């Protein structure tokens, strides 16, 4: 069974194709690392898988239904997307921010109820931000804000987590805690996780599958143990990767 399937995706822009014929099948319990150099289309891939933009060709299926046919809110209940950059400044508190993750689940137009708030608080606890609910988001540090973004997606509680550089701005301890949290989402809670990482060692330790995006537009999915050999990585990154 797969949750999210990509069939023969071509990604990029009409004048510059980044990926050709990309196939991917993301199942529950899978934890995927997407590896590749800058500009190989990692972010574009996540946006296409998340339904934020169309592929040049090919299709994406969510639980067997082609993505454009899934209603906006229904899609957001199943797919959570951590963006690499969040464009806008948010004026409110940390708790108000994380509560926005409940938006696709809201039953009543006006807003969050007590159950939503409990979920938001639990999400903050899981990213080590408990006790800071009333702080203004804008007063948090870069790393704390990154964890807040992650908490918003935990509160969203999707089946599929698409995470674009989830570790950015995090200190070492929080990087490892975040990776452990994401692994437990997949292994213990049956979620499907796809994350963009930059360190093959992390992928080996915390993911069971990897998708390699080569500079020439080809893509290679497979189990981490078989895939992440030294020669493949050197071809992937175009540099010596001793010890990576």
């Amino acid at each position, binding site marked *: 069974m797969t949750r999210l399937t990509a069939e023969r995706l071509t990604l990029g822009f009409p004048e510059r194709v980044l990926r050709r014929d990309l196939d991917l099948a993301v199942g529950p319990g899978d934890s995927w690392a997407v590896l590749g150099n800058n500009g190989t289309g990692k972010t574009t891939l996540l*946006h296409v898988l*998340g*339904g*934020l933009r169309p592929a040049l060709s090919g299709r994406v299926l969510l639980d067997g239904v082609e993505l454009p046919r899934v209603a*906006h*809110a*229904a*899609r*957001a*209940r199943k*797919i*959570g*997307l951590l*963006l690499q950059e*969040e*464009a*806008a400044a*948010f*004026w*409110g*508190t940390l708790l*108000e921010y994380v509560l*926005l*993750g409940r*938006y*696709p689940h*809201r039953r009543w*137009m*006006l*807003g969050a109820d007590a159950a939503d708030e409990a979920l938001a608080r639990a999400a903050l606890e899981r990213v080590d931000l408990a006790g800071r609910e*009333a*702080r*203004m988001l804008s*007063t948090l540090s870069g790393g704390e804000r990154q964890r807040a973004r992650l908490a918003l997606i935990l509160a*969203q509680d999707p089946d599929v987590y698409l995470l674009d550089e989830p570790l950015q701005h995090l200190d070492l301890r929080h990087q490892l805690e975040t990776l452990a949290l994401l692994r437990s989402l997949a292994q213990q809670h049956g979620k499907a996780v796809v994350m963009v990482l930059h360190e093959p060692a992390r992928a080996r330790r915390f993911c069971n599958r990897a998708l390699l995006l080569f500079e020439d537009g080809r893509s290679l999915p497979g189990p981490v143990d078989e895939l992440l050999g030294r020669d493949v990585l050197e071809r992937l990154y175009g540099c010596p990767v001793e010890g990576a």
Partner: protein
Amino acid sequence: MSRPLALLAVLLLVAAGAAAVGLMAGSHALAPAEVLSALSAREPTLARDIVLELRLPRVSAALACGALLALAGVLLQVLLRNPLADPYVLGISGGAGLGVLIAMLSGLGQAVASVAGFGGAFGAALVVFGLGYRAGDWNLYRLLLTGVVLAAGCGALISLLLVLAPQGTVKGMLFWLMGDLSSAPGAGWAWAVALALGGLAVLRAGTLNVLSLGRLKAAALGVPVRAAETAIYFAAALATVSAVMLGGTIGFVGLIVPHLVRLLGVSDLRWLTPLAMLAGAGFLCLADTLARTAWAPLQLPVGVLTALLGVPVMLLLLARRPGSER
């Protein structure tokens, strides 16, 4: 009591107080009891005529106009994700001004001028929308620039009209441009627009909140971004045009009032929207009462007063220790 609820109570009191002062103050000052008896009087008295014929329509227009401007400001600050957005960034004031001034210059009556202003304003809004929404998608940057450029063009034409206009009509034109409620038409329809749009905005405030995270994040959370932004645009345009029909281009309210409420510690749009509308209504009503009494019998354009009152209030709030209360 939570902070938004407390603010709601305070701002309700402020708006009601502003309306009461507006009914009492003037060249013929009335005591509260006199106003009350005038409001309920059956047979025509001087006090009844003053309150019902002169002051109540003006107070009502000021309240509705202030609420509409604040609502338009809130919506546009969400839509453009730009704290400097105000109801006039989309060229609506320029379009309306041009329409009204041409009508005034042609010696046409009030009614024709209103229609011309309405036409000019909606024409400008449509042009900006059409250019900003090319190829079925927004480019907010292009939208903002189109509005600014259109406003500048209208501004130049307005200056030209003012130079060419005969002395007698210039003062009326200037008052209209600075914002003036002395010749506001009946405001019943504006109240209806304000309540309908405000209610809709509060019901959809969850979506507005998510949109303030940016278009991509909002889309990822399941907001149909394009439809939502189109709706916000036209709601803001309708609110602005309605306000302009009442009082000309009154500046400052739409820009400052939403920030004022934010600086008081409310950012959730479920609360920010009604609070800003209340604050805008009370603020404009007070400013208008001052405008017609401060230099009596001379009447000032209320737009001058909104700036004179708004600037110190805003500077005071900005000077407070940031984040001290949360």
